[in-house]
């Protein structure tokens, strides 16, 4: 048991290291570097002083060094808990990410809650009332949610919010609350802004969950213990809810692993469209600007989350299923 966990941990560490190398290399693969991004921005604002010293900036940022030197400098700091200074933000990377991490989690958790709250009851209903009109309607809606690209749905909902409900568009807070201390009014404002992202992010996952739930439950419903329960005269509602639903829920445990990274950055495209102050847009901008320390730290964080998530879900499965426990 302990050796199993130890091996998983060692593998996890190796994976994280590999992620760090790959991310650092991939971030720098496109043409140019942060200095050219900076030059481009200056040029866009009519600032093209021809004597501007690009070479000097490069040396200052250490961008003139070979890539492996840059990598070891960076990873050396990271190991000591220092993620460096973001070129673009001129602030420590940890602060920049920290600001947005909590809000990212709020958005993702809201979406997950929405998904589960919608998908599980519908999945149960669809299984119990298989091939009924309701089953077809819900299945259709679920697939529609899967088929419509997130960004399109986000745009449409945002426009409806603007044109019909006159609400504050995009973001997670109205301007007046953005910088305010936490209060009931601010929380209410946040909840109002969470509706659209939760629906948009949630609908995409709903169809999949409905199908899994439906299929699992259908398998269970055929089993003799359900028939026995029915034969004993238990109420239909109780028969379904008490036993087969609980068994059918098991596979969800194994998907916990994927939820971890998703909680941090499961919403890049939607966050950009809706202008949510989450980690997603931060990552995109860092990649575009080749702000390596920031982008590297986020990718590394995602890697760590995936590894931890996988480990947790392995452990949960092991605890649930003796066959896995004894296989090693």
């Amino acid at each position, binding site marked *: 048991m302990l050796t199993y966990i130890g091996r998983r941990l060692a593998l996890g560490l190796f994976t994280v290291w590999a992620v760090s190398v790959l991310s650092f290399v991939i971030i720098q693969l496109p043409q140019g570097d942060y200095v050219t991004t900076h030059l481009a921005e200056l040029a866009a604002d009519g600032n093209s002083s021809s004597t501007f010293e690009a070479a000097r900036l490069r040396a200052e940022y250490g961008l003139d060094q070979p890539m492996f030197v840059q990598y070891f400098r960076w990873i050396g700091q990271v190991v000591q808990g220092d993620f460096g200074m973001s070129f673009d933000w001129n602030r420590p990377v940890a602060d920049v990410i920290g600001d947005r991490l909590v809000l990212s989690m709020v958005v993702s958790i809201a979406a997950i809650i929405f998904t589960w709250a919608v998908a599980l009851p519908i999945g149960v209903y669809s299984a119990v009332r298989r091939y009924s009109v309701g089953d077809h309607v819900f299945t259709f809606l679920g697939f529609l949610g899967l088929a419509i690209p997130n960004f399109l749905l986000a745009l449409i909902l945002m426009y409806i919010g603007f044109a019909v409900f006159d609400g504050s568009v995009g973001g997670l807070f109205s301007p007046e609350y953005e910088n305010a201390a936490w209060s009931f009014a601010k929380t209410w404002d946040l909840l109002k802004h969470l509706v659209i992202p939760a629906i948009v992010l949630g609908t995409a996952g709903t169809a999949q969950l409905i199908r899994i739930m439906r299929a699992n439950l259908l398998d269970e419903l055929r089993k003799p213990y359900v028939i026995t329960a029915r034969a004993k005269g238990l109420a239909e509602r109780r028969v379904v809810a008490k036993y087969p639903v609980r068994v059918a829920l098991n596979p969800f445990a194994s998907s916990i692993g994927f939820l971890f990274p998703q909680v941090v950055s499961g919403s890049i495209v939607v966050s950009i469209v809706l202008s949510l102050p989450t980690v997603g847009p931060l990552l995109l901008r860092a990649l575009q600007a080749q702000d390596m320390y920031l982008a590297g730290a986020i990718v590394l964080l*995602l890697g760590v989350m995936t590894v931890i998530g996988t480990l947790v879900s392995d452990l949960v499965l092991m605890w649930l299923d003796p066959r896995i426990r004894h296989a090693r």
Partner: protein
Amino acid sequence: MTGSDYSRRLFLRNAILATSGTLLAAGCTSAPVVRASGADAGSRGGGALEGLPAIEGAELVTDPALIPKAFREAPELAKLVSAGTLPPVAERLGSQPLVLKPVHGTGKYGGQIRRGFIGQGDFQNAVRFCSGPDSLLYWDFRFEKVVGNIARAYELSDNDRVLTLHLRKGMRWSDGHPFTADDILFWRDDISKSADLGSGSSSMRSGDGEVTVEKVDDLTVRYVSKVPNPTLPERLAGWSDLAGMAANAHLGGGGFLPKHYLSQFHPTYTSVDAANKLAADAGFKGWAAYFRNRAAWHQNPSLPMVTPWVVTRPINNPPWEFGPNPYSIWVDDKGYQLPYIGKITMGNVENTEVLSLRAASGEYDVQDRWIGVTNLPVLIDNEKKGSYKIHRAPFTEVDCGIRLNLAYEDDPELGELIRTVDFRRALSLGVDRGQINEAFFLGTGTPTATTAAKGSIYDPGSAWRTKWAQHDPKQANKLLDKIGLTTKDSAGYRMRKDGAGRIRLDYQANAGGADFVGIGEMVKRQWQTIGIDLNVQSVESNLLIQRTTANQLMLSGQSVGTDDPFLKGDTFLPTVTNNYPGMIGIPYAKWFASDGKQGKEPPESLKLLSDAMALYQKGLSEPDDAERVRIGKKLYQMHADQVWSIGIVGFGLAVNGVYLASDRLGNVPARVVNSLQMKSMTNTYPITYFYK
């Protein structure tokens, strides 16, 4: 996350931006069509749309009789005074404040302005709105003459070789420390000339030598040039690295810096070790990086400034916020210290479409940046609902043109063609400018060759706007036949002389200001009729810079600077050696900049370009204003005649041409000059805005 995942997301992002634009446009029904019909006369600011109000703005008061004697201040500052934490207002202003007569009337104190910005790259957002401006000199609101600003007055003497600036008596930095000539010398000697910090400051070069800055006394500074330097005041006033701390200090420019504060980070005043230690403690690598950060208005709230607002919350911890500078030198003609509105909050928005939608729903009190001309119908449609008014300020330059790399060499035959004047003229005649104006600019621009706007002092006349710029495929085909490109393939495209297929030009651009990639696609279709094939590519701006400096770019779509040939020659003549605006010919720019030591001399076919550069140099040191203007006109004529770039649509609204202000705000000018030199929209004077 994998590489392909990333590129898929990038692709999706592009799709979003494209789709959302369409959605916004589709969302409105009766789109008002705004139509240009030439330009009106008027100020130097040039271009205009029919039915636009006249240019207006706050008037600088210099008549001693009209200068107020008693001063008043905002209630929140008065509170600090009575609490004893701040000296009285008269003491803070000094004896020579900057007096403005607001455009519509005296305002009242209070309220806050809400705006949007789009991330760390958008640091100019505040510079172009609430920096004052903080340049030593500035333009009057008509963009006609240079007037005093942070410096009270100036004079040119000794055949324009000596510029004397007079500073304001008793003027103070935002922390209360006196502002003196030493702050200008500190910048010049310890930053501008420093190998670690300086931008080299091309604006401080004149003829073969450097401009020297001398302190006469605490309030008087002299700039001495070796040859006549008549445009130096305009550089101090406009958009050069000399023109203000807010825009330039973190890049090594600014023109002046708070010596009493910044010297603690400068090794000359401490030691390299001490300066490096301060930097390391703050997490920066090396003192130079930290100095730049400490000198950045948008990033360092403790930096003393002379701007009317100071940063209270930096850009990198949004929302970006500003509070009143208690030592602001601006007062209105009744003696009220400006700004009337003490607080500005700028929210960070991740994309421009959300910003436009927020603007349309009235969530911003003032917005000018990032609400492009393509969203104009939606914005106008929602004026009532959002309780705001849209104002239009046509640009003083060419919004959209095709820049040509005259020094292109990677494909020798195509390079030769680009250097052939009849080929360039044919390309220009093959462009249907009206169609592009309607499709991409909603008809708000003026079809034009690369030349100055009507009303500009450098305007060579309206005939030059149509020079080789009317849609005339017949004439174009004739010109192409004349230079021997007569063989065509089965699809009607002209063949190369070396037999390697069609003549196929490369056009690389990225969206920004306008849909330059879409415009390229339209030009590609238009050039079919003259048998020239165009390969259109969407390219990231990073890559554009790299390809420019490597001299690999052939054609690109962008705006072309035709505001003022001497102040903004960057895209107009080969003057930039290391950035995308210089794509007209990087090797040539290097050759001219180094007096023939580096780069490449333009060949015989571009002799006129060398002549134009000589004229440009002559104009820069021409003390006779009338002669300089004549040279400027001549340069525009030569550019239009030689088609060194293909101007398409100009003097429209694509570049910062639309601004929106809440109905509740007073003193918002109905129209202003839209020019980089004016740091537009700073010239709407937001310090005089107030809530009615």
